[in-house]
């Protein structure tokens, strides 16, 4: 049976960005690639939608950015997780686990 790629639920993109950056600093394109990689290519993100999310997270102080040179010698903006971002990721993961558990419980109810 062919598996369809899942669209992102509202609010999960922020958590995925934080998770991608937990593994190390990345530019926007790299973040998209890493999300695809860690989700086993199951999550489909409209690539451009990543950027408003990145700017929102930066404004909240959960990530910070600086311009640097990428692997192919081009200037790129790299993002990294702040201490507040790490704390937020833990909170988001706990909330997500609770929500997913509750949903599964509801779906399995007779």
């Amino acid at each position, binding site marked *: 049976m062919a598996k369809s790629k899942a669209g992102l639920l509202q609010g999960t993109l922020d958590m995925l960005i934080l998770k991608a950056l937990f593994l190390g600093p990345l*530019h*926007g*394109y790299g973040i*998209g690639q890493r999300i695809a990689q860690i989700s086993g290519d199951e999550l489909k993100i*409209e*690539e*451009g*939608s990543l*950027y*408003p999310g990145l*700017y*929102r997270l*930066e*404004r909240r*102080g959960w990530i*910070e950015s600086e311009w640097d040179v*990428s692997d*192919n010698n*081009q*200037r*790129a*903006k790299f993002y990294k997780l*702040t201490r507040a971002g790490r704390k937020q990721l833990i909170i988001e993961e706990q909330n997500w686990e609770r929500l997913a558990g509750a949903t599964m419980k509801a779906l399995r109810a007779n």
Partner: protein
Amino acid sequence: MSRAKATVRFLHAWQHPDEIADEVEAELRFHVQMRTHANIEDGMTPDEAQLAAKQSFGDFDRIKISCCEIRRGLPFDMKPLKMGLYIAIACLAGGFALVAVNLPHHNLFGVLWQLAAIAVLMCAFLVGRRKQ
């Protein structure tokens, strides 16, 4: 990012909107370029690769505007500021009321003070009520 640093960034964004727009555009273009290269490596022709990269990116201009707006947004939560404003209005209204009560009421000045106090109290009440 500290609050001071966030405030400096916010002020910088307001002082130099063109610089911010250029920065956002450079970042988004970098993404499209990277995707184009990846598509070429996957066997597409350069034209096909660029077209596919633009399509998978989405509406470039809309995303750019959205990023610029977020970048120029306030770097802190407005709720405490609003709460402080309501408290200030309430204190002001209380002060007006105290002064008005202690003024003699037989002259025009005293009556005007009382009316002003009532007006401020009503404003405070309406503002507070609207936000609940």
